[in-house]
């Protein structure tokens, strides 16, 4: 099925885990979690939301040079299947 890009909203790099106990980590670790991004030239694992449709968030792996989409995941699939590869 074909859907327009405008049906979706981009929400950045995927699988950034919120630290379990923010008050116990350093400013550097918290700043890293909040702001630092991989921003790769090439394969990027990222979140999108089907904001004009079912409103679900999902994860795709996309090439940032030519927009090739390699794979897509539900949030649960993504956290199980690709977390260990990207860390």
């Amino acid at each position, binding site marked *: 099925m074909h859907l*327009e*890009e*405008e049906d979706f*909203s*981009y929400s*950045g*790099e995927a699988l950034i885990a919120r630290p379990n106990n923010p008050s116990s980590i350093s*400013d*550097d670790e*918290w*700043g*890293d979690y*909040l*702001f*630092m*991004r*991989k*921003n*790769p*030239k090439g394969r*990027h694992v*990222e979140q999108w939301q089907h904001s004009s449709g079912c409103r679900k968030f999902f994860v795709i792996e*996309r090439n*940032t*040079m*030519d*927009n090739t989409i390699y794979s897509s995941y539900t949030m649960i699939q993504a956290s199980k299947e690709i977390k260990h590869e990207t860390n």
Partner: protein
Amino acid sequence: MKYSIFSLLKQGLKDNKEWPEAWSSPIIKSRYDVIIIGGGGHGLATAYYLAKEHGVKNIAVLEKGYIGGGNTARNTTIVRSNYLWDESAMLYQHSLDLWNGLSQDLNYNVMFSARGVYNLGHTLQEMRDIERRVNANVINGITAEVVLADEIKKRIPLINISKNVRYPIMGASYQSTGGVARHDAVAWGFARAAAALGVDIVEQCEVTAMDIDNSKIVGLNTTKGYVATNQVGCVAAGHSSVLAEMANVRLPIESHPLQAFVSEPMKAVLDTVVMSNAVHGYISQSDKGDLVIGAGIDSYNSYSQRGSPHVIEHTAAAILELFPAFSRARMNRQWGGIVDTTPDACPIISKTNVEGLYFNCGWGTGGFKATPGSGHVFASTLANDSPHPLAVPFAIERFYNGHLIDEHGAAGVAH
């Protein structure tokens, strides 16, 4: 050769066949005291001020493409300094001060034209924000005033101030000292002036790896071989993250396409710069006569120098709401550049954990206006191994200590 009316006459009489090249194409050396990665306006300005004001002799600028082929020649050429916060207002005003007199300084006509910049307000809240920003500007010594819709209509006859549109124009902030410059002339002018001071400008030379020993930079691998150096300034705009990864430095940057387009040339119809956050677009008319139009970034990370068609459509719609008469203008060219956005819409001018490695990046959608000032403060930062006073607030540490400089209001859409 000094450019002047006399050299113009002399070369004209020789049928313009004997102009020397503006800058040479040197063979890359095996060692430099300072290497600037990125031959855009900011990188070239850095090299120029390093040579001119700090007496550094052995400098190279490495450019993976060609001079004037990247973002320097892809932006919409707007120059202004009416930012809200003291830190950014001072930095951009420093740059504006350098724009005045830059053509004489470089002996190259960068065609800086202070034709004024209007930032439109379409809602009551926007007008309140505009008044606040104008007041902040005035306190900081930056020329700014609030102009209401009737006065805007007198000054810009083609603009539509009808209340019968989705976002009627209520007023604007106006900076009479802002304007436009010829963007590629800025790259060429800095390149020529830097080369005249002995800077090696090496084009078609991409950095592929950084040689870091014991947390110190000692050299670079490039497509033209290995170069030794102890000081590297990265000024690579949208590709900053790619360089940072080579040194295991983390940056809060995301690269996005920013699109722009120009119409066919037409007679003079717009003698100033008009920008709008609410309808999301900005427009000016170049000296050639083409309307230069731009808007916001494409939402997703990309390095592809092209964006999505719906962004173009949205931009055109915004401009037509402001200037219905332009509905008949035919567009000539459209393109994208890769901009390096930061979470607070402010640049990063900073040392890193690697000794001798510095970054000047994150200028996002509005770096062109900062070209001379950015180069000037970064040169000082490199020469003294300590941030220029104006660069202190823009260190990477702000993302760890929380001292962000939130310029989304002044920089969000307006460039």
